[in-house]
């Protein structure tokens, strides 16, 4: 019941907002967001207390891994929704419905047990968000939208190829077509699935969902789409949409590990992770556009997550999942602030942004703090999850890969720090003013959460990560 409501609310909200205008639309947007976030948190809490929730004959199923993602979608969507009215005004009918449709498709992707339908939902996330990427209807946003929809649709079609192969492997052995693509079924039958076919399927699945996760070399759509979308949409795309690509890979990994041995997934994730970090490090050394800089930093962090999954073990998997959450919080705050910076300076070029601390007395220091978190400095959570991942690498005998990852992290760190330095100080250019204290509250709350994952884990976090590890496997 809770699960059905979780999906019905954003969908109904989107339908209502397609007709609403003006103040009614803003209120409708607020209420839909409030209900969605509340239900998302309720579902997560319920799963931490029990083991898993089910609905509609098991078609919807939320275990610890899904609950983690549901909570993440809820929190980031909540943050983005607060900022949304500043962007939607005047054209709310082109913004709010797609915003909530986007949230709906993301929630559907992480709550369905049917891996075929998960594919449909993930393709749906692209189709709902492409309208938001093209919201400003400039030449640049048009180009970004076209590349986004084409590259992601082709990528995800490749993932569908993998899904079909897995379905074939399952159905030829065990029959039972209707439930064959259920994750619970596949997991139960995994020991009997033919290894070579599952291996082949996983390669396609990894390339396909890796495209959605923004892993290099399939990342080319990402900097364009993330930089051209309105800030709240960038926040959701970078914060949780990429993580949903990782989620999809995680659903298949335990099946492949059992059917074909853990070596294949480990090797592929390791390779993609290192390539992503290298590509990002090269760009981050000297970026020109700050939104593209944030986008490339997502490629870097998702690469690190991929490494954590490759290293495995309790620290690797928990570290990767924690890193997903930490990155979601830090990156969504930064993207939301990038929207304010753009409003104040009327430019996305780093060259034009000077004296940020003086020009935006609230948003400037917040940007500074969130960047420090993103750089992986203590006391913020990203430091902890990065240490967990790199530590897992050394513990599992991947010393070379860990050293390389550390080196790449340092290069990105230096580049980002230099850029941040240039933006923060100097004579303040630009004209616009800052928003009030109220507008800063949700962002401060997100930073406080990041401090908590860095300093003192809230009750239940360790248990939640442990139950996710049991779902994902070694």
């Amino acid at each position: 019941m809770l699960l059905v409501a979780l999906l019905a609310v954003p969908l109904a909200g989107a339908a209502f907002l397609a007709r609403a205008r003006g103040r009614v639309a803003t209120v409708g947007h607020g209420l839909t967001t409030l209900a969605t976030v509340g239900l998302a948190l309720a579902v997560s809490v319920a799963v931490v207390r029990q083991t898993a929730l089910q609905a509609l004959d098991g078609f919807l199923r939320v275990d610890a891994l899904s609950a983690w993602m549901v909570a993440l979608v809820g929190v980031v969507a909540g943050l983005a929704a607060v900022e949304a009215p500043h962007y939607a005004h005047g054209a709310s009918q082109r913004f709010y419905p797609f915003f909530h449709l986007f949230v709906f498709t993301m929630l559907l992707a992480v709550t369905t047990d049917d891996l075929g339908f998960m594919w449909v939902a993930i393709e749906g996330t692209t189709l709902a968000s492409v309208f938001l990427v093209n919201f400003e209807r400039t030449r640049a946003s048009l180009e970004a939208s076209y590349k986004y929809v084409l590259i992601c649709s082709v990528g995800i079609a490749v993932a569908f190829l993998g899904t079909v192969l897995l379905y074939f492997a399952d159905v030829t052995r065990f029959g039972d077509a209707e439930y064959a693509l259920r994750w619970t079924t596949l997991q139960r039958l995994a020991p009997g699935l033919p290894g070579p076919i599952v291996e082949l399927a996983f390669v396609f699945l990894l390339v396909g969902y890796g495209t959605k996760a923004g892993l290099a070399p399939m990342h080319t759509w990402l900097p364009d789409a993330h930089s051209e979308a309105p800030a709240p949409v960038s926040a959701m795309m970078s914060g949780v949409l990429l993580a949903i690509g990782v989620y999809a890979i995680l659903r298949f990994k335990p099946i492949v590990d059992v059917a074909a041995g853990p070596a294949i997934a480990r090797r592929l994730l390791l390779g993609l992770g290192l390539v992503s970090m290298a590509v990002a490090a090269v760009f981050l050394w000297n970026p020109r556009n700050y939104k593209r800089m944030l986008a490339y930093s997502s490629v870097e962090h998702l690469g690190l997550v991929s490494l954590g999954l490759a290293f495995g073990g309790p620290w690797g998997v928990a570290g990767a999942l924690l890193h997903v959450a930490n990155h979601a919080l830090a990156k969504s705050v930064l993207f939301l602030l990038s929207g304010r910076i753009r409003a104040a300076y009327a430019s996305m070029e780093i060259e034009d942004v000077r004296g940020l601390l003086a020009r935006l007395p609230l948003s400037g220091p917040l940007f500074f703090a969130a960047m420090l978190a993103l750089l992986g400095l203590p006391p913020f959570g990203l430091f902890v999850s990065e240490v967990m991942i790199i530590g897992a690498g050394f513990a599992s005998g991947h010393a070379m890969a860990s050293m390389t990852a550390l080196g790449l992290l340092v290069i990105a760190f230096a580049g980002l720090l230099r850029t941040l330095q240039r933006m923060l100080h100097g004579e303040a250019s630009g004209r616009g003013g800052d928003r009030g204290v109220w507008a800063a509250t949700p962002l401060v709350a997100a930073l406080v959460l990041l401090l908590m994952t860095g300093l003192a884990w809230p009750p239940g976090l360790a248990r939640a990560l442990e139950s996710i590890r049991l779902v994902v496997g070694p």
Partner: protein
Amino acid sequence: MSDLSNFLAFLGLVTTLLMVWRQSRPARVRLLAAQSLLLAAQAVTIAAFTARYGLLLVAAALVVVKVWWIPRALTRMGRGAPPRPLGPGRSAGIQLLLAGALVVVAYALMLPVTASSALPTRGGIPLAFAMALVGFYVCVSGRDVVGQILGFLMLENGIFALGLLAAYGLPGLVEAGVFLDVLVVVLVTEGLVMQIRHEHAGLDVDVLRELRG
């Protein structure tokens, strides 16, 4: 049944290769419609021989969406633009050679799949996979937006054929979702392409070079 389904799969691959060879956009759109019609015929064949009448519904959806509606949308996107690429074209010979190499690759990759299948349709599995690979190649090497979308749809058709030949299609709900997705993808890209034509007066992807770095 084996012979008929193999023959249909072979014809499907022939239309795929013809699409690589032809330069004229209207001709390639017609070939896509023909390819989708062959898929529908494949679905009907399997339905008739195995008494899976749900596949008739799939065939009907194929005819409506991929034989009728999508080619019309593609024609709308290209209306008024020159039917074949201007300027010195690339040699179709080399493209065909590459596509042929992909067919060989498809056979090699599908060996374990064909070997573990007991269905009478298994002979067509590598052909369907080859359709998907060639479609992917057409998409990434396409130089105008309609060409890229055509490649994407060929890839979709190839995967659909693979599902049909290897497992008699996917569960109904998933199949319906996939149809809906393809439909929306074409709808969305049509909107974008119309806007691109309005802004840049052309279909060439080389005009899309605003975003760099």
